[in-house]
């Protein structure tokens, strides 16, 4: 019995028998893409201010806040990357009675790739964004303009707040 061996063949290009003939070129296009991305390689740091009231009168010692800084590290891979800062005030749970404050506001400035973005904790939400562009390296976060609402006596207790730096690949 004759067997037929059927070979299912994928579409193939049959090379012409090597007779004298003109050459033909086929092209395979290869495409790929790299998404715009930002990433923090060192995403968390803590600034410990210690005692933030003045021994002489119990009011906020702004020198304990202003100038304090920490450095995150990260990168963005596209030129349109932007950076925003969101500052959250320092607070302690105990209520502040007349003559007292239980809150510390400040301005945080993030600097990366020689570009800065700021935000004050006095207003909720993020500050205006800055185009940080393509970079990889340090993001220096510095505190300034510390204040208390009434410049009153500071309520005793532990105070916490934070600065969030957001890197966005494209605007």
């Amino acid at each position, binding site marked *: 019995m004759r067997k037929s061996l059927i070979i299912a063949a994928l579409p193939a290009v049959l090379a012409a028998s090597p007779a004298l003939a003109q050459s033909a070129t086929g092209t395979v296009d290869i495409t790929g893409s790299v998404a715009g991305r930002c990433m*923090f390689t060192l995403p*968390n*740091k803590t600034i410990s201010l210690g005692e933030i009231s003045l021994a002489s009168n119990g009011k906020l010692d702004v020198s304990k806040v202003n100038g304090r800084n920490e450095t995150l590290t990260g990168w963005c891979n596209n030129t349109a990357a932007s950076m925003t800062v969101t500052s959250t005030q320092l607070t302690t749970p105990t209520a502040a*009675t007349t003559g007292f404050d239980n809150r510390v506001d400040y301005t945080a400035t993030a600097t990366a790739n020689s570009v800065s973005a700021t935000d004050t904790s006095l207003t909720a939400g993020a500050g205006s964004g800055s185009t940080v562009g393509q970079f990889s390296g340090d993001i220096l976060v510095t505190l300034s303009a510390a204040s208390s609402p009434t410049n009153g006596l*500071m309520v005793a207790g532990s105070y916490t707040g*934070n600065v969030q730096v957001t*890197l966005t690949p494209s605007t």
Partner: protein
Amino acid sequence: MKRLVSLAILALALPAAPALAQDSATGTVGIDGRVTPVCILGDPDPALVDLGQISESSGPRTCKIRTISPQVVRLPASFCNFAGSVVRVSTTALTSSDTTAPQPGFSRAVNYTATATNWAAGSSAATSAALRDGTSPTASGLGSTQPLPRIADITVTLTNFTTPGDLILVAGNYSGTVVVTLGPAAVPD
């Protein structure tokens, strides 16, 4: 002879072209600080209460304690920055600088009451109960607890100046002290 040259080319599986990613990344710098519990009393005004002559010069009460009007001392802008503070008052009787035991019918001690107000509900008070020879001169009293941080002018009023047994006062210079302490309500004696 024909030769089939099969060139099998696999269809490459190409991933779908990705949409442009909007992945923001957020880094956080936490901030912590503290404010130490503190109480500070304002400096007393006056720091020294001078009663002048404390005995009568004439009349039926000659040489006995005269009627002395209430004396007021302010401790302005006293504050505690934490909840749960209390004022303690300690009163030490006026006694003569001459420490010899007084003769029968005489006293070398003058008792009085010191009352601190305007910190918590009510007041903190102490009345000295010295004997005529000046022993047991000091008494203390605590007030109620202030439940909130507070800044206020504390007033200390001295009243009720009396002599043990209403006896005749020995001549001399008399001195006593009122000690005001502001601190946590759980402070031990």
